[in-house]
């Protein structure tokens, strides 16, 4: 039964207090460990369609009469459009419509960053649209951009400013035997999903159909409906297959509004897709940060003080991610003070990128902890153990579950390798080992819904309105349904990706898909199972409660087994329909994920080249539904983290604010040749307080700690303090020179 509660809702580290209508989730959790289907490796049910090139992505949608769009974007970081002349473009071959500032949401004559959309042209082919776009005449008033985050803070150009404090930082520092202070910097990285942002819009009467590459079918529906003043049920959002998002595809975005308006004007379907070069400028990024940090501890390693002044270089819009989150929550420290400021700059807006804020903040905090360990002469793993937070930092709110100490225990054999690894150093190639802890969200929350239908063949179809962004959502949900229904996995199919033909499902972000949608699917399956057993009880006699469904068979009280088909076969065209909803999160508890990573590196002290040779990743995300898919998420997160740590960087011209790295040869993504040995391990203990599954998300945790673990390994190998990302050869050589200077002063 639905009821109203007041609760905290978290998405990507942002909290709000809301009223929520939730449904109870009365199911008992399954006992820990692998079960018939759940907890066992499963390949993706849609893998064959993807591998054979038969899966239709948004870019493969070809509707009759479809037009193609080219978008004119500001080449200037800050400019005002004095005038736009579309007439020459409108007269060009194949052009069907052209629009300019004010014609739809997303097109503006005030450009606050390079890449801001100004005008758009649609034509029979993309080549024609692009050619016509060159004929659009714009008169620009170019204005001086603000590009420096510290300057923006000094000038009060802020999107947000917040202070979080417990205890007394100054007192904590006075009580410390050892104090370390350092400034860390992280850089801008771009999601660069293989499929760029794109959509196809088509009007059908008073219905707008939107085929879109998105992480949030329902969010896009509501956003478009609100912006265009439509009934949400007259916006049909469709995303069958999706080519990656990593946080950048949670919204409708300018290309969709442009497409919808051009489709309205032309009466034809309109495709609007970003080019790779547009993607590198205008499709979101992980913002740069400056972190001025201090830590104090007693001689035994007990933390007495943690302080941080954080500046997020947010760009023109977006939000100020929780860079201070790890400092606030990772350790038991009585005196913590953080000040976080989001600087508004004339740079492309940030968007959520796989654990936004925490990935950046963990780099600073976990490097600082190792610098502290060095000064104290303490083992870095032991220092972390001694400061383990048994209760939440905020007024003692407990953790719904926390296996961080178990992660540390399992990290020991990997950490022990450091002696042997160091011993393999040569005169020019220095080897070392470093570690860093991970904390992040990942508990998901209500609402999310699922339907299940079971037909007369005894097979089940799960129907929901979510999306599989490539994380293997379909496989995990099918496993949950199969487990609850006692069916073989291959008898369960999943239909999702359409708002008009499914029920609400949460966004695929914040490591929340499985923890949010999974319990809804289990509840729907339980509803269907109950109905099947009631029919079986009527057919075979006895109480429904004394029957079980197992391996596709009805098990009677005496142990006799009847094939499921014998009962459901009686349905004919009838169907068993089950419905399920995600229940509430445990009240007054922190629902978080934890982990530790141990990195082994080799540093060429002559060239500054850093090679990551091995990464061990141990994470606690509650119950693991699909160990195969989870291992892919761990590897993928670590590989993305390797790019973040060593090679990826959006470079902006410091005078003009124009993006210099627009292509995939300038912006250096990791390749197959850059991958180290990766050992992933999951603690796999269900969270006893979280839903009927006890599962949290694994999408983001693996990207969080790697950069710090690598920097700490570099210090172990060379004595050099790397405090700035990415660790290019230049950065590494500078850090080595700094270490030599420090050594000279010391002697």
């Amino acid at each position: 039964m639905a009821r109203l509660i007041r609760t905290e809702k978290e998405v990507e580290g942002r909290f709000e207090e809301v009223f929520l209508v939730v449904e109870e989730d009365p199911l008992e959790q399954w006992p820990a460990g692998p079960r018939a289907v759940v907890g066992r490796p499963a390949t993706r049910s849609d893998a064959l369609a993807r591998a054979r090139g038969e899966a239709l992505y948004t870019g493969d949608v070809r509707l009759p009469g479809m037009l193609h769009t080219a978008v004119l974007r500001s080449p200037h970081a800050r400019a005002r459009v004095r005038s736009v002349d579309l007439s020459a473009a409108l007269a060009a071959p194949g052009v069907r419509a052209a629009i300019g500032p004010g014609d739809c949401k997303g097109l503006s004559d005030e450009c606050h960053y390079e890449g801001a959309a100004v005008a758009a042209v649609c034509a029979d082919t993309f080549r024609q649209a692009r050619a016509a776009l060159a004929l659009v005449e714009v008169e620009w008033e170019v204005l001086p951009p603000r590009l420096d985050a510290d300057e923006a803070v000094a000038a009060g150009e802020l999107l947000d400013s917040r202070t979080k404090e417990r205890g007394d930082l100054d007192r904590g520092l006075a009580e410390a035997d050892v104090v370390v202070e350092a400034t860390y910097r992280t850089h801008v990285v771009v999601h660069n999903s293989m499929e760029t942002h794109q959509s196809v819009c088509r009007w059908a009467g008073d219905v707008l159909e939107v085929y879109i590459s998105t992480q949030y079918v329902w969010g896009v529906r509501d956003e478009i409906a609100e912006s265009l003043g439509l009934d949400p049920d007259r916006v049909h959002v469709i995303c069958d297959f999706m080519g990656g998002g990593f946080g950048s595809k949670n919204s409708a975005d300018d290309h969709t509004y442009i497409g919808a308006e051009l489709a309205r004007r032309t009466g034809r379907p309109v495709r609007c897709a970003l080019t790779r070069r547009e993607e590198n400028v205008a499709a979101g990024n992980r913002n740069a940060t400056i972190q001025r940090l201090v830590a104090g501890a007693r001689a035994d390693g007990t933390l007495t003080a943690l302080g941080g002044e954080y500046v997020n270089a947010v760009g023109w819009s977006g939000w100020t991610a929780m860079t201070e989150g790890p400092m606030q929550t990772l350790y038991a420290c009585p005196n913590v003070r953080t000040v976080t400021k989001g600087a508004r700059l004339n740079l492309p807006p940030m968007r959520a990128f796989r654990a936004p804020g925490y990935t950046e903040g963990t780099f600073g905090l976990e490097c600082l902890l190792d610098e502290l360990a060095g000064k104290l002469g303490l083992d870095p793993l032991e220092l972390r153990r001694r400061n383990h937070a048994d209760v939440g930092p905020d007024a003692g709110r407990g953790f719904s579950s926390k296996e961080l100490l178990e992660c540390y225990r399992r990290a020991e054999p990997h950490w022990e390798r450091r002696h042997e690894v160091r011993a393999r150093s040569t005169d020019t190639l220095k080897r070392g080992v470093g570690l860093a802890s991970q904390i992040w969200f990942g508990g998901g929350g209500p609402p999310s819904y699922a339907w299940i239908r079971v037909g007369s063949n005894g097979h089940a179809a799960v129907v929901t309105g979510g999306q599989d962004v490539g994380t293997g959502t379909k496989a995990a949900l099918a496993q949950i349904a199969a487990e609850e229904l006692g069916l073989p996995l291959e008898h369960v199919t999943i239909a999702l990706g359409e708002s008009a033909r499914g029920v609400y499902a949460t966004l695929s972000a914040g490591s929340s898909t499985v923890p949010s949608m999974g319990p809804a699917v289990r509840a729907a399956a339980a509803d269907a199972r109950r109905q099947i057993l009631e029919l079986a009880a009527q057919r075979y006699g006895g109480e429904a409660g004394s029957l079980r469904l197992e391996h596709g068979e009805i098990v009677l009280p005496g142990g006799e087994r009847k094939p499921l088909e014998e009962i459901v076969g009686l349905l004919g065209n009838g169907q068993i329909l089950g419905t399920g909803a995600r229940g509430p999160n445990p009240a007054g508890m922190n629902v978080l994920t934890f982990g530790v990573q141990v990195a082994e590196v080799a540093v060429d002290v002559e060239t500054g080249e850093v090679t990551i040779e091995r990464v061990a990743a141990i994470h606690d995300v509650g119950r693991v539904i699909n160990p195969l898919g989870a291992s892919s998420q761990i590897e993928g997160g670590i590989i993305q983290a390797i790019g973040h740590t060593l090679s990826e960087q959006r470079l902006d011209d410091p005078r003009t604010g124009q993006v210099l790295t627009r292509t995939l040869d300038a912006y250096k993504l990791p390749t197959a040749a850059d991958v180290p040995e990766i050992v992933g391990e999951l603690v796999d203990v269900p969270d006893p307080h979280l839903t009927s599954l006890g599962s949290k998300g694994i999408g983001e945790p693996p990207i969080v700690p790697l950069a710090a673990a690598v920097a700490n390994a570099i210090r172990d190998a060379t004595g050099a303090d790397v405090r700035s990302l990415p660790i290019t050869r230049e950065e590494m050589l500078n850090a080595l020179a700094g270490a030599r200077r420090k050594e000279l002063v010391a002697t």
Partner: protein
Amino acid sequence: MPELRINGGLYSVDVPVGVSLADVLRDEIGFTGTKIACHEGHCGACTVLVDGTPVLSCITLAHRLEGREVTTIEGLREHPMVESFVRADALQCGFCTPGQIVSAVALVERSAEPSSEEIRHRMAGNLCRCGTYPKIEEAIRAWRD
């Protein structure tokens, strides 16, 4: 008007000089299994075989392929490499996967049991943002199982 031999079939396509093979495959013929992710030869998503050699179809001019044999993912659907990718979970979002499989097929045609070094070297031109590289290596090693 070039006549192209693709996956064993002959196709006459009427496109202006300068159009890429990738655009012809996707827009003229409807072989959308070949994906375009950068359209400038940097990522490998559009990889096809021309006379057995992997090429980037997005920077290959369609008019230069008269008399050559083009093989796309549509022509490799029954190749055991496809099943091997599925078994190894060697794909996540799957957008780069057809290109990965085409490159992997070319690799094992050349060297049926490639070493880890060979795989990492030969596959380095196919980017995967989801980071499935370890599983791709596993799939290539096990392609005949």
